[in-house]
């Protein structure tokens, strides 16, 4: 399997661990993974506040690049996915938008015709690679680890419409269960983390983050499918705690990090040292869980 992928600014910057672990996990799964050449920022949730056209043309340029490379495009960032798929839909539905977007793209010498298909990382892992292949690669099952999957808002909508329920998706749960984790169901798994509000309007952003952390409180860790959410949930636990009148200390990981843990990949390759909220405790929990399950296994074996 060969893929051209779009990392996005967040995964190559403030959430570097997402990118590092993604590379490591994909190598482990035997997936050929090449970065889209010369990609640019999709505009996050910011370009749209200045220019409607840029909010479509910036992501469209990356699709055009994929088209030039005669490939589909995969991304592991939900915010980017949202912007990219919006560009796909809007240029498809509206001829005048398509023309104007291409007029902009001409400045960088590319055109977008709508040929390149867009895929989400989760979609690729579950539907192309397959959970059976993922299961085979697991060397250190996440026994006893209670994990809350955070699908994210941008995930819950167009993204999952391609391969899962839009309002109540379950694909992430399946992946985590394959890794041996105990999946924690909680009500805000598709609620928005506030995106860039954490930077532009801290009081509101931190409240949204606080609500999320509180809802997933009884999990050992939260796992996200978006580097931007990863950054938000990791970096503002102190501020969120202040607003909610509590103290949060919940490790938050990217989905390929937890996969890498289950695959027994080295911590450094997964960027685990980069976390604001330390994640070392998780290994202890897994070890304890493994001990319990192996003693249970030997007990049942004795009988």
């Amino acid at each position, binding site marked *: 399997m060969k893929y051209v992928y779009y990392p996005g*600014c*967040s995964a*190559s*910057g*403030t*959430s*570097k661990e997402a990118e590092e672990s993604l590379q490591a996990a994909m190598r482990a799964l035997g997936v050929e993974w090449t970065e889209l050449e*010369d*990609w*640019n*920022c999709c*505009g*996050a*949730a*910011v*370009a*749209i*506040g*200045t*220019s*409607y*056209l*840029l*909010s479509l*043309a*910036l992501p469209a*340029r990356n699709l055009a690049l994929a088209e030039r490379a005669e490939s589909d495009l995969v991304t592991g960032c939900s915010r980017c996915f*949202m912007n990219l798929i919006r560009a796909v839909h809007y240029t498809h539905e509206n001829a005048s938008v398509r023309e*104007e977007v291409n*007029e*902009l*793209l001409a*400045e*960088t*010498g590319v055109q977008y015709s709508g040929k390149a298909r867009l895929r989400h990382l989760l979609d690729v892992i579950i539907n192309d690679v397959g959970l059976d292949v993922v299961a085979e690669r697991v060397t250190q099952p996440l026994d006893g680890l209670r994990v809350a999957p955070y699908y994210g*808002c*941008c995930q*819950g*909508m*167009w993204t999952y419409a391609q391969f899962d329920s*839009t309002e109540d998706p379950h694909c992430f749960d399946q992946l985590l269960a394959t890794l041996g984790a105990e999946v924690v169901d909680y009500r805000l798994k598709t*609620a*928005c983390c*506030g*995106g*860039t*509000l954490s*930077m*532009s*309007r801290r009081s*509101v952003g931190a409240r*949204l983050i606080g*609500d999320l952390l509180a809802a997933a409180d009884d999990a050992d860790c939260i796992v996200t499918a978006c580097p931007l959410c990863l950054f938000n949930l990791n*970096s503002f636990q102190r501020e969120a705690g202040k607003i909610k009148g509590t103290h949060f200390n919940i490790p938050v990981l990217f989905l390929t990090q937890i996969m890498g843990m289950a695959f027994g990949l080295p911590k450094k390759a997964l960027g685990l*040292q*980069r*976390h*604001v909220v330390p994640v070392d405790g998780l290994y202890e929990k897994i070890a304890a869980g493994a001990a319990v399950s192996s003693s249970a296994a030997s007990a049942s074996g004795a009988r």
Partner: protein
Amino acid sequence: MGAQANTVDKAWTLHTPERVLAARDLVGNDFSLCYQCGLCTGSCRTAYAMKYTPRQIMNLLQLGREDEAVAGGSGLLCTACFSCTFRCPRGVAVTDMMTAIQRRTLAEKHADPHIRRFYRAFLRTVERHGRFHEAEFLVRYYAPNPLRLRDELRLGLTLLMKGKVTLKAPKVKSQKGIAAMFRKAAEIEGRP
């Protein structure tokens, strides 16, 4: 005259259909389909902090009162998560309208300068480098307001130490072309 006249003074006068149509051009979608059920607002995580909820903004647009919506600044709280658009039972592209209001709020300088600076700083780094550049962004965003910078110092240092923020600017080959896209967009959209 008297008391009754006062009431009338305070009442909103209705705008003409032409004016409502002008608003439709502004946001490019048919908000007149909205039947005010409030599902958008109920689905919105930031509505609690808004002066006008998304549904109320739809109503302001229907009345040709988009200036009121723009000045209210609620559009700035839209995270573009698209929940409202996906759920709208009448198929109204609510998010597109919220962001249209957001654009005008920013363009017409109704927003707090700090927030305006956030948008400017972010996009400026993309325009200059093709990608987001955290370090440059932080400088542009906080430089005029050192007090805020002090609040952020703790996080900034942590990020720096963990290797999440680098001072080196990202390199994109087509960087000039991307800057040209920004200029072209401003030209088409008639922005300064």
